[in-house]
């Protein structure tokens, strides 16, 4: 194997300042992406911990902020019009919502994940969903909750703490009522 011998002359080429500067810049960049990664990896959605804050503009143009909803139990449901299991639980969610609709201390919020507005609105009309729903623009909320897919539901108590996480669809109205009632206590 023919290899050129690195002579001392070759190494004189780069000034130590330049080399140091370049590696320092690289190190800084690596630290930066490491910190970004740490932040992205931190799993904020843990039962018993404060739930991540969110802001959602609904399809009707109303803005919901989690801090303004303090004092209410929030049922945060992630769904998509293309997701068949979501369609299965849609009726249960709506029926459960009808039980609490007159109470001031419970709110259901639907978040449409990776969906087009057209299809999402059609889905809502088809399943006669009456609680507020909006698109998760740039998937900010679903990232904050680190969802793995749809449907997923997060129940947040009056103090903003996460009390229940449901991965996959609810299979009955009773199941939803149980977890909401538990959060109300």
């Amino acid at each position: 194997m023919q290899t050129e011998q690195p002579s001392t002359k070759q190494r004189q080429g780069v000034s130590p300042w330049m080399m140091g500067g370049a590696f320092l810049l690289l190190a800084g960049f690596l630290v930066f992406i490491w910190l970004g990664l740490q932040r992205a990896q931190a799993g904020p959605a843990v039962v018993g911990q404060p739930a991540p804050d969110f802001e959602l503009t609904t399809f009707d143009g109303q803005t919901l902020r989690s801090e303004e909803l303090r004092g209410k139990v929030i049922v945060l449901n992630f769904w998509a019009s293309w997701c068949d299991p979501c369609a299965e639980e849609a009726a249960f969610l709506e029926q459960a919502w009808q039980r609490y609709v007159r109470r001031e201390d419970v709110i259901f919020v639907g978040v449409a994940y990776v969906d087009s507005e057209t299809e999402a609105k059609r889905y809502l009309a088809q399943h006669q969903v009456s609680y507020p729903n909006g698109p998760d623009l740039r998937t900010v909320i679903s990232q904050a909750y680190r969802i793995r897919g749809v449907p997923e539901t997060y129940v947040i108590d009056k103090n903003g703490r996460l009390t229940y996480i449901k991965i996959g669809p609810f299979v009955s109205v009773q199941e939803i009522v149980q977890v909401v009632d538990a959060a109300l206590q």
Partner: protein
Amino acid sequence: MLPEVGYGALLVAFLVAVYGILSSLMAVWRNSATWLRSALSAMRLTWPLITASLACLLILLVQGDFQVSYVYNTTSRSMPLYLKLTALWGGQAGSLLFWGWLMAGFASLAALRNWERDRELLPWVIVVTLTTLAFFVGMVLFSADSNPFVRFWQNRSGQPLAPAMFRSADMLPLVPWDGRGLSPLLRHPGMIMHPPMLYLGFVSFVIPYAFAMAALITGRNDVRWIRITRRWTLVAWLFLSLGLVLGMRWAYDVLGWGGYWGWDPVEVAALNPWLSGTAFLHSVMLQEKRGLFKRWNVFLIAITYGLVIYGTFLTRSGVFSSVHAFAQSDLGPAFFVFIAVMAIASLGLIFYRWEALRSEGQLTALFSRETVFLLNNFVFMSILAVCFWGINYPLLSELVTGQKVTMGPPFYESTVGPLLALLFLLMGIAPLTAWGRSTWKMLRRSVWRPALLAFLLVVALFLGGVRQPGALLGFGLAALVGFVTVYEYGRAAWMRHRTQGESALLALWQLAVRNRRRYGGYLIHLGVVLMSLGVIGIEFFQSETQGLLRPGESLEVAGYRLTYRSLAQFDVPDGRNVTRAVVGVEKNGRFLGEVYPRRDYYYEAQQPMTIPGLRSTMEDDVYVILVSWQPITEDGATFKVYHNPLVNWLWVGALVFLVGSLVAIWPESGNVVKSA
């Protein structure tokens, strides 16, 4: 059985790759041809092994084996066959496997070339390529989130257990009746081609990168690695370009906002390596012809490949928020280590060979083809800096302030726009400059005709009613580049016609055949000019309107009158219910034809699809959507209409671009004298 076979084949491929790396190092250490041959065989073997694994996953997807978590998450019973196949890249795990398969394909292809002249590079090319491959395959094998063969299990009392690859005692298979299905945004024919093209572009950059690193390690700092990889780089760059354009077409057809580019962070992350790759394609010519910028070229190829990996990291680690991004995964730390090792090694090697990479020649004049190329590189790198900042700033601001700020289209448009104008100016000048030394007088003599034509065109447009300064500047620069390119090509053909007596057509053909790189490059420039017409059309002249119409009523946009005539709803034999509106299109009182926006409802999949009615000409597109969340009845329906001037030139330009790239890539035939 199939999941075990797929996983097993992949595990063997991983071990073979690791073996290939070790035997390559042995070959260097012992100076042994036997070890080297063995390493080469290992590199060739990876592709068939990963192909077997991929085939297993495809069969599982097509069969709809919902016990497999990946199949459950990306397909459903009602999906047609072609969508089940595209589900291969519809999720994190499958697309990583697909990525590894493509990379192994390129590695095997590189292993098949004739290595006689470049034996000293071979072991290091193998080490770099197989290390990258082993990294990607390793992630699929050892990360819980990215193994596509993981299955669902339950215990004897029917409680679901955590998904796992292998079955242990007391575990029973848990087979869901149906899967979650694929997002409808991905259910489009464009998705068949867009991701594979982009991945091909990304992955194939590994070959020039591996050669560059091998050249640095062995100290073979001549132009050889560039000559060998020139075609590889062009192929990689062409796939990346096609991937980007197909993504634009997909956005135009599916996302329904009448545009094609949204400056989504993932789009920008894919554009970044294209920018540095394009700079590289230009700047290698300086090294080949004049021995200049050796350091810069190695740096550029390293940066390009680094950006490919960094973009993949951002998309797949959950750091980004975007419609393109995959959900959270545990890949981040592994990716981070890979990026760190790659960056430190590349930078270290460049510094190690710093002196040997000194330019052989010098810039001999302030104004020459070399300096114009240098400026071109500077502008490409400036655009890259803007785009790099654009995707990283949100992360930075989140770290510092806790608030995630997103950089939207206004940021990019205001910063990239002027740089693009400068780039077009350079594109117009470059073909008219000479290598070594050029003079302003020479430039003036050749540029005045194309420049005058471009100026006349701008005046004509102004008199025709175009008043936006940005649009006039854009058209003027595009025209300058177009006229210069045609003028240069025409002038050379005219010379051949005069001196060799060839017919005009033959002269044009001969020129392209004899200097494929130059005239392929000119065709690419022409393609870019045509594409820029589409960009200017949408950026400056797009208009839209929306309204609820009763039959007989009209909407007006950009001089067009669209009249809602009738609506029909009917079933078609392939299981669709079609709601189809008939909309008459008139301009200045003249009837031009009808468009038929539809909403197709797929009974089996319970999926509606909105299909625009499109009247597409080279002048403009009228793009009509039946707004389907409002009731659609014979008495009234809501329509959204976009008027997109010149947008078709974008796709025509892309075709010219493709032809130009193929001309440049096509191997020169043996008996043709190579000229610059």
